């Protein structure tokens, strides 16, 4: 599990350039699913046939991570950039980044900027060690993207890495496929989506193509368990968070209750999640075509969107257990 997550988070995959992550995941699962394809947007869609094909279940975890995009190359070889998804300029100060999965750069701000509260992306630059524009252009073109450059570390029983949002969710889907002991109840589509961080876009087209009856996202959520944190009743290590609400969705109460019942029956610890910031692929699945019953299993995460996101290993294991129980349940109360 830890080894799989290490490979997932250390693979380059900002929104719009998920190819390497997709190929990694495809290699992990293609022998264990009944059908696998990539759609126009780049979503990886894998089907595990169910005992009953009267309903379709879609699971969504996004492959993309936040990053940067090169917008201009200075005469001296410095790269100017804009953000891809929600990247705080404060998190970038002093940070190392990786362009195109191969070129390392370091970030600083313009020297004259003294008031740190005015820090914005357009006052910063990446230094890739080039001394001229020509030299820089041998490695980087305008429009090329970068991610944080960090490795995964185990800290106590907790994982620290960039890109756990949402490679941790990808790992939950992959491990669920591997650990399923019997066929799922219904036809189940494991979808590894693209471009979540720039507006949950991959989920729009993949939901349309699959037209699911039930949609369940697996994604990171925030916690309220750090010093002087904003109030939020989710903590690291206390189990998967069953989503009730985020900005994209009000979860179907029958699906939420099904998850709670299955967690209690199987003695899986769980929490309830009300996220007042951020949306997820959940909302897209719910509103596709004529609508779907939608919910989410959220993995509690600290320092989300920073170079050092933190999750708890037991939360991951319990997320896999809960998801497996759902897929093999009779979906009582839903239909």
């Amino acid at each position: 599990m830890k080894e799989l997550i290490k490979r997932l988070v250390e693979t380059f995959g900002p929104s719009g350039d998920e190819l390497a992550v997709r190929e990694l995941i495809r290699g992990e699962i293609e022998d264990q699913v009944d059908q696998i394809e990539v759609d126009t947007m780049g979503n990886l869609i894998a089907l595990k046939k169910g005992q009953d094909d009267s309903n379709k279940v879609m699971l969504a975890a996004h492959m993309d991570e936040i990053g940067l995009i090169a917008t201009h190359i200075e005469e001296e070889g410095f790269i100017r950039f804009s953000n891809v998804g929600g990247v705080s300029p404060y998190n970038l100060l002093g940070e190392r980044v990786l362009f195109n999965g191969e070129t390392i750069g370091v970030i600083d701000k313009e020297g004259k900027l003294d008031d740190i509260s005015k820090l914005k992306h357009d006052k910063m630059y990446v230094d890739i060690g080039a001394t001229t524009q020509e030299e820089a252009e041998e490695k980087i073109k305008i429009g090329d993207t970068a991610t944080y450059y960090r490795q995964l570390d185990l800290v106590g029983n907790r994982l620290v890495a960039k890109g756990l949002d949402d490679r941790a969710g990808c790992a939950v889907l992959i491990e669920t496929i591997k650990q399923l002991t019997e066929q799922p109840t219904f036809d189940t589509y494991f979808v590894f989506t693209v471009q979540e961080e720039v507006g949950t876009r991959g989920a729009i087209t993949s939901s349309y193509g699959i037209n699911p009856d039930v949609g369940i996202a697996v994604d990171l959520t925030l916690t309220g368990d750090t010093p002087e944190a904003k109030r939020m009743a989710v903590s690291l290590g206390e189990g998967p968070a069953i989503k009730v609400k985020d900005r994209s969705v009000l979860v179907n109460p029958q699906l939420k209750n099904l998850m709670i019942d299955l967690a209690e029956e199987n003695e899986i610890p769980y929490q309830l999640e009300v996220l007042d910031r951020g949306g997820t692929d959940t909302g897209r699945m719910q509103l596709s075509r004529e609508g779907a019953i939608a919910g989410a299993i959220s993995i509690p995460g600290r320092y989300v969107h920073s170079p050092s996101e933190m999750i708890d290993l037991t939360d991951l294991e319990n997320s896999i257990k809960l998801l497996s129980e759902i897929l093999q349940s009779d979906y009582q109360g839903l239909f």
Partner: protein
Amino acid sequence: MFLKQLSEAVGVSGREAEVRDLIREEIKDDVDRIETDALGNLIAFKEGKPEQPTVLLAAHMDEIGLMITDITDDGLLKFKPIGGIDKRILVSKEVVVGPDQIPGVIGAKAIHLQESDERKKPLDYGELYIDIGTKEKEESEKLVELGMMATFATEFEQLGTATVKGKAFDDRVGCAALIELLQQEHQLSIIAAFTVQEEIGLRGASVVAYDLDPDLALVVEGTSASDVPDTKEAGYSTQLGAGPALTIQDSSLIPSQPVVNKLIEVADQNDIPYQFRKLTRAGTDAGALHLTKEGIRTAVISMPCRYIHSPASLLNLNDYQATVELLTKFCQDMEEGGLADEGVN
């Protein structure tokens, strides 16, 4: 050039009929079929050979403007903005109101009558009005109804040797380029979508491609140019005269990388100048188009326009010609099998 008629035609978001009629008349002999959908999008089909791909080209017909929301007892017209308008540019501009293009002037208190404080801040919509030369409400009501749209009364004209001035270049320049493509002979199939209501939220483009099944889509736009004093080069969005601008990313779209790479390759092979749009904010019809049903591979080609969304934008004609050339050569490359084997990214 036909851009003159397009620029001078009136078509504020939601009221695109005049522009639509003008385009339909211009292209009717060059295409196989023309449809208008429920929202007002004009869709022209130019059939190619059966084994050839289908390219969807899209440009929006609508322009920003003002909606008449009230008529005062003195006959003055109160209004609200439609689309992104900088209210600081409104005062004293000449406008035309409604389908009959009633001329008017955006009025406000003259400088002599203002207190010194008033001169320091831009006039808000509450303080601005359109004066159509009437004396009272009843007289105005014979000419104007609530809900009518007003736009700038700007004549199209050439400045210097290679620059033209006009209103609504966003996106009549795109409409003009699409029309030129339709007037050429092609082996591939072209669907040209002239969309409505882009300026208020990509609304026409959200529905236009639902019944179409193109292999890819190119959105042709007029975009902001910021190569003006007080802007550092790193902060330029685009530059006038440097060729069509390719979008690397904006608020609505990450373009299809194979399509962008092909555009670059075609431009390089044919010595067509191009640049990148360095601004990653704002959006275009591509944002809605590429998410239609199961997704459409989409890219954006923009012509830089200075002073966009104002009464007078400037366009470099070389940029326009290079854009038409790039679209033409791109279509030819597609006819020769370009992009046929490309994956998603």
